[in-house]
């Protein structure tokens, strides 16, 4: 709300003082990315709905790469990035494979009493490896079905259009929705 005052020296000073205390995250995208890197997938998706600027930041594939491999130790090999990007990008990898795999396994995790941090990380690595394999199979199925390379996003590109149905071989990852309630 602008107060239309007589523009005099006092007001200008007040405005400058105000702007020193006003902090807008949108002016500091590196900070924004730092914060977003610590979020989980669901929150990231919610963040993409905030405004157009945030949406384009969140669509940055490296954020999703961080999300996919955050807990994996040792970190995946150097060639992984080019392969994943060629097959559709990290955001797609997360949506189509990593998230369903992780959530399916969470319900069935073989609990060895108190799982140590190391054990959890190793398990995550197997999960990620499985996700990568399934991701590749899914890409191949799209090749078989649609003909011509589908969705090979460039580095950090916007990836695939939302609303694409998952490939048939990954149907088993989806939990059935009970619509009878």
């Amino acid at each position: 709300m602008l107060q239309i005052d007589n523009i005099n020296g006092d007001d200008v000073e007040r405005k400058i003082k105000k702007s020193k205390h006003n902090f807008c995250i949108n002016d500091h995208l590196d900070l924004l990315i730092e914060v977003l890197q610590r979020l989980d997938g669901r929150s990231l998706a919610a963040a993409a709905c905030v405004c157009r600027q945030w949406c384009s930041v969140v669509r940055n594939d490296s954020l999703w790469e961080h999300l996919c491999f955050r807990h994996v130790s040792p970190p995946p090999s150097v060639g992984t990035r080019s392969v994943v990007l060629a097959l559709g990008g990290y955001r797609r990898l997360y949506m189509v494979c990593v998230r369903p795999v992780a959530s399916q396994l969470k319900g069935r995790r073989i609990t060895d009493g108190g799982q140590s941090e190391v054990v959890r990380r190793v398990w995550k690595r197997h999960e990620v490896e499985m996700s990568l394999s399934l991701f590749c199979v899914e890409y191949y199925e799209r090749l078989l079905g649609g003909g011509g390379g589908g969705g090979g996003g460039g580095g950090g590109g916007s990836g695939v259009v939302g609303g694409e149905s998952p490939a048939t071989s990954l149907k088993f990852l989806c939990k059935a929705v009970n619509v009878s309630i």
Partner: protein
Amino acid sequence: MASSGKGKDLHQTLPDSGGMDELLEVLGYKVRSTDMADVAQKLEQLEMVMGEDGILQLSDTVHYNPSDLSGWVQSMLSELNSNASDIVLPGESSSTTMIDFSNNKEIDGQQQQGTKLYDDDPYDLRAIAGGAIYGTTAEESPVSRNGIKRMKSGVAGSEAVVAPPESPKPVVLVDSQEAGIRLVHTLMACAEAVQQDNMKLADALVKHVGLLAASQAGAMGKVATYFAGALAQRIYKIYPQDGLETSCWEILQMHFYESCPYLKFAHFTANQAILEAFAGASRVHVVDFSLNQGMQWPALMQALALRADGPPAFRLTGIGPPQPDNTDALQQVGWKLAQLADTIGVEFEFRGFVANSLADIDAGMLDIRSSEVEVVAVNSVFELHRLLARPGAVEKVLDSINAMKPKIVTLVEQESNHNGAVFLDRFNEALHYYSTMFDSLESSALSQPISQDLVMSEVYLGRQICNVVACEGTDRVERHETLSQWRTRMNSAGFDPVHLGSNAFKQASMLLALFAGGDGYRVEENDGCLMLGWHTRPLIATSAWKPMET
């Protein structure tokens, strides 16, 4: 009931009913008014017998006077009474007998009064040698025998319908639990009849199975339907045509791939063994005995692409059957795989071989390069058993594999003996195996909506059932054998086993954990081989081999 005044107005144009009910008369049925209650009761009984889908499979009832409603309802009921075996008189509790499979006998635990024994009637199910269905005498008072448990009615799951107490007529009950047991026994009895070449009895039994199977919901009913169909083909000597089989087969197998984990398990475990064998190699060559759609190879190529020391040059030789429309399906699959390889940065070469039988191919045709240059892996998923249809074929192929000097041979086969010399043994083995398979499909159906995949998978398995049961000689290609049988064969052909490591086991376990509703699947390690089963029954086995050191 309309008053006589109204009735007269309504039926003024009709001739005198002569005591017949007027309303039914309008519909064309002649039923005495005095018989109305009786006919209503009979119709009710008939409806109970018809089952859920209302299909009554009485092929032999001839109706002469359709307007005589009472008459033909009665004749249908009495035909059913002579077909079916349990006749429970009102006022008595029906009991269900549990069958111990190892005994293979069922004692009919109900009081039988007035049971008719026809000497030459093909419908007399008692006249089966071996007592497959009935014990020695049916008139014995029900005494429990060794190994047979009996339960009173009122058991959960039993849907016994008790007749109204006033009815003087015998009533046919359809108890779903007992129907299931009788279904299995009728199937086995039919197979036994076929074994003994008693086609008349087998024919009657097959029809009976159809009736029972229709009333049985779920996996058991479906399996029984397929087996009954296959038996019927064997009895009537209508053998399934070949030809259109091939392309349908590949499509069906794709659906089977989608809907259940068996093929995925096969691919992942075989790939893990191949990946480990390829460690350190810079040029690799995989010979795939049944390329199909090439679904196994993307995952392997991706794993090779992400290898720590970079991907090797990957060469794939795919073998497949000729297509009915002469299209080069192999080349198309090769092309798609090449696109994938290009995307992920793996040097790729493909060659396709069309062959009617693996025995037509020998090592020389495949351009095997020296082992210093190239490491070779041979992969066979559900393919080698087909060679057992021709004598000498499997030995020839195993020799050619040896000539290829592979570093590893991966073999995935069904874990069951469907290749016994005696038809009845094969039948029983197959019945148990495919019942378990259908059970596992059914449970995954519960957690996902019924999809086309599931239905097509059942058709896929149904084709196999048909081949095992109805075909003979070189047509019978589904000659599955157990892991121990394959072990013997591989050993005598000059191969040593290679143990599948714990990585393969972990991958397999994880894969199964991903299947919603997959709580029943079990991965088992069996002396270095991995078996995937449903509950306690192993269904497929992956093993790896290498040529013996000379």
